[in-house]
C-alpha cells in the first residue's frame, strides 16, 4: 500500500536533517521491508536493547540529572556543587581547566591566562580535598571529564575516598578517559596513541579488581559532533572507538565480561529531533550486536550500552541568547525519548561565557520539567514502531557498518587516526554545514534569519586572574612544604612502571599521596613516552 501524496506546491527548502540526510515526505510500512520486532527491537531490557536497557524504562529510575560545572579555584567550584546538590541535582560532573586537562601545573608557561578559565584548576590532592570539602563521596556519584591525565585525577579521587574512610568497592562515578576522540576531535592529548591506550587498559584492569562500580571510560561522540561531524559520523566513530578499547582490553589479557560492563558512552543531543532519537536507539542495537557477535560477550551487562548525553553546545547562539533555552529543552527531550541514562542541559549563556549560577539552575529546571510535568517518562520508547523513526534507526545501522568496514580496512581506529581519516571526514562536514548556513539552506534563528537589531544583554560570569594568582600561590606553598624526597621517589617509580609493563595505577596512587602535582606526574610519563604531535589537516 502506498499513501498518495498530493502533488501540491511545497516550500522551497531542502527537506533534510541538520546532518544533511534527505528526508522523505511520508513513511509507510513500505519504508520498513521485512520488519521484525524481535530481531530489530525486542522488548525494553531485552536484546538487542533498541528500546532501552531497563525493562521498566524510566518507571524504575529516571535519568541522572548531571550538570557539568567547574571554574576558578576548587573553593569556587565547591560552592557551585553544594548549590547544585541543594537544588536537586543527582550527580556531580567536574569540568577541569585547560592546564589540568593538558597535564600542566598553574605555574607552567603554557598555562598563561588559562588557569581556572574553562573549568576548575586542580593541581594536586590538596585541590581535590578543597573541591569536595563537605561532600561525602559515599553519597554522590561523580563524573570527571578528564582524558590524558585521567589516571592522575582518578588516583586523587581514590586517595580522597581513602581519607574520607569510604571503601573503594562502594564508590561510583565516571572518568571520561577516552583518548581516541581527543586525537579525532577535541585534541587534548599528551602522549602518542599507543602508550595512551596502555594507560586506559591499566585503569580497566585496576578497576575490575579494586573499584568495581566505577565507570572506567565514557566513550564520547559529543566532541566529535561538536567538531562538525554528522549524526552518522558521531555514531560510527564513537562506536568504532568503543570497539578499539574492547580490543585493547582483550589484547591486554582481560576477559570481555570482566571490563566491558563498566564501559559507558556519551552522545551529543543535537537539534534534529527524530534523527537524534533514532541515533540513540541505533547505538544500543549496534553495540549489543558487536559485543555479542564480534567479541562473544556473554554477560548481558556487556551488551547494554549505557549513555550520558549533553545538549549541543555548538547549536547555541550568542545572538538572542534566550532562544537557547528552547533549543536546549527540545534537544533534551529528544535525548529522553531516546532513552538517555544521564543528561546535562546547557545554559542559555554558554555562547558568551561559562554559565552563571542562575543560568545553570534554569538548565537543571528544564530537565525537572521534562521529568515531572510532560508525561514523556511514562511509556517506554514511545517512538518504537514509528515508520519514520524505525527507518532512520535502520539507516544509522547501515551507515555505521559501512564506516566500520572502512576503518577495519585501514587496520583499526588508531591506524585511521594516524592517517587523518576521521579528522578529515569531520572537517569536511563542518565546512559543508557552515556553507549551508551562509547559503541559508540551514536557518539558524536569530543568526541568518529572524535577526533582531535589539541586543538582549544577559549577565555573564566573569573569571578574572585572581583564581590564577591563588592557584599559583597554592602550588608554590605546596612545593615548599611537602616531603620532596617522597615525591621524587614516587615519580621515579612511576617512570619505571611506565617503561615496563606493570600497571601504573599503584605508582600513581603513591605519587598522589605524596602530593605530587598533575604536571609532575604527567611530565614523568612525558619523559618516558614523549608527546604526540598531530599533522594539522584543514
Amino acid at each position, binding site marked *: 500500500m502506498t499513501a498518495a501524496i498530493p502533488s501540491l506546491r511545497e516550500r522551497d527548502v531542502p527537506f533534510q536533517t541538520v546532518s544533511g540526510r534527505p528526508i522523505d515526505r511520508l513513511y509507510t510500512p513500505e519504508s520498513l521491508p521485512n520488519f521484525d520486532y524481535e530481531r530489530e527491537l525486542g522488548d525494553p531490557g531485552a536484546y538487542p536493547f533498541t528500546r532501552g536497557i531497563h525493562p521498566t524504562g524510566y518507571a524504575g529510575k529516571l535519568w541522572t540529572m548531571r550538570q557539568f560545572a567547574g571554574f576558578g579555584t576548587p573553593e569556587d567550584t565547591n560552592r557551585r556543587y553544594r548549590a547544585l546538590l541543594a537544588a536537586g541535582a543527582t550527580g556531580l560532573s567536574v569540568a577541569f581547566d*585547560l592546564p589540568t586537562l593538558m597535564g600542566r601545573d598553574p605555574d607552567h608557561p603554557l*598555562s598563561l*591566562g*588559562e588557569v581556572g578559565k574553562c573549568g576548575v584548576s586542580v593541581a594536586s590532592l590538596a585541590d581535590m580535598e578543597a573541591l569536595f570539602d563537605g561532600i561525602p563521596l559515599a553519597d554522590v556519584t561523580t563524573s570527571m571529564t578528564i582524558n590524558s591525565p585521567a589516571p592522575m585525577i582518578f588516583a586523587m579521587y581514590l586517595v580522597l575516598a581513602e581519607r574520607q574512610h569510604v571503601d573503594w568497592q562502594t564508590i561510583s562515578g565516571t572518568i571520561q578517559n577516552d583518548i581516541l576522540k581527543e586525537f579525532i576531535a577535541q*585534541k587534548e592529548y599528551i602522549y602518542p596513541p599507543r602508550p595512551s591506550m596502555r594507560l586506559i587498559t591499566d585503569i580497566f584492569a585496576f578497576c575490575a579488581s579494586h573499584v568495581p562500580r566505577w565507570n572506567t571510560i565514557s566513550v564520547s561522540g559529543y566532541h566529535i559532533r561538536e567538531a562538525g561531524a554528522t549524526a552518522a559520523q558521531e555514531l560510527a566513530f564513537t562506536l568504532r572507538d568503543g570497539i578499539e578499547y574492547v580490543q585493547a582490553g582483550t589484547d591486554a589479557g582481560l576477559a570481555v565480561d570482566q571490563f566491558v560492563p563498566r564501559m559507558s558512552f556519551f552522545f551529543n543531543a543535537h537539534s534534529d529531533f527524530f534523527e537524534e532519537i533514532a541515533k540513540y536507539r541505533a547505538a544500543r542495537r549496534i553495540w549489543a550486536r558487536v559485543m555479542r557477535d564480534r567479541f562473544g560477550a556473554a554477560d548481558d551487562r556487556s551488551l547494554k550500552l549505557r549513555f550520558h548525553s549533553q545538549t549541543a553546545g555548538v547549536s547555541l547562539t*550568542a545572538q538572542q541568547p534566550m532562544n537557547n533555552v528552547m533549543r536546549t529543552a527540545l534537544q533534551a527531550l529528544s535525548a529522553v525519548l531516546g532513552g538517555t541514562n544521564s543528561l546535562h542541559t546547557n545554559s542559555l549563556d554558554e555562547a*558568551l561565557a561559562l554559565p552563571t549560577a542562575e543560568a545553570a539552575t534554569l538548565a537543571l529546571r528544564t530537565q525537572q520539567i521534562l521529568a515531572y510535568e510532560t508525561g514523556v517518562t511514562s511509556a517506554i520508547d514511545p517512538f518504537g514502531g514509528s515508520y519514520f523513526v524505525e527507518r532512520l534507526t535502520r539507516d544509522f545501522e547501515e551507515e555505521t557498518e559501512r564506516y566500520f568496514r572502512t576503518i577495519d580496512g585501514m587496520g583499526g581506529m588508531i591506524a585511521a587516526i594516524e592517517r587523518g581519516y576521521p579528522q578529515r571526514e569531520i572537517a569536511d562536514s563542518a565546512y559543508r554545514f557552515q556553507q549551508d548556513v551562509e547559503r541559508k539552506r540551514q536557518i539558524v534563528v536569530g543568526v541568518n534569519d529572524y535577526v533582531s537589531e535589539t541586543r538582549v544583554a544577559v549577565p555573564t560570569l566573569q573569571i578574572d586572574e585572581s583564581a590564577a594568582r591563588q592557584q599559583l600561590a597554592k602550588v608554590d606553598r605546596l612545593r615548599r612544604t611537602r616531603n620532596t624526597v617522597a615525591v621524587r621517589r614516587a615519580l621515579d617509580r612511576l617512570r619505571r612502571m611506565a617503561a615496563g609493563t606493570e600497571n601504573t595505577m599503584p605508582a600513581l596512587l603513591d605519587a598522589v599521596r605524596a602530593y605530587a602535582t598533575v604536571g609532575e606526574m604527567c611530565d614523568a610519563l612525558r619523559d618516558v613516552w614523549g608527546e604526540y604531535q598531530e599533522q*594539522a589537516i*584543514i
Partner: protein
Amino acid sequence: MNTIRVVIAKPGLDGHDRGAKVIARALRDAGMEVIYTGLRQTPEQIVAAALQEDADVIGLSILSGAHNSICSRLMELLRQKGLTDVLVVLGGIIPDADLPGLKAMGVSAVFRPGTTMQDIIDFVQTHRIPRLPAGAKAAD
C-alpha cells in the same frame, strides 16, 4: 594585487579547532594563501611563523578565555619585531567588556559566534595593510 598571505593560529592550550579550520578553508577558497600553524602555539611561535611566511594577516582563534593575556603578548612581540603592518584579527568567545582593550592593543577585528565566513573574507580583503616594497621594512 599580490595574493594575501594569512597565518591562522591556535594559541593557548585549547584544542577546539573547528572554527580555525573552517576559516582557514574559507580564506583559501577565497584565493588567499593560508598557513595553518596547528595547535598550541605560543605567541613567540606565531610571530616567528608570520615573519617566516611573510604574512599580511594573522588570524587567531581563541575560545578559552585566555585572549587578553595572549593578544597582549602577541602584539608586544609584533611591535618588537617591527611587524606593525600585519593585520591581526581574532575569532572566538570574547565578552563585550574585553573589546575596547583588544582594540587598544591593536587587534583590528574580533569575530564572534555567528559571524559569516564572507564577512571575514571581506574584512581581510578590505583591511589588509598594503606592503612596502621588500627591504623597506629593514629601515629600523
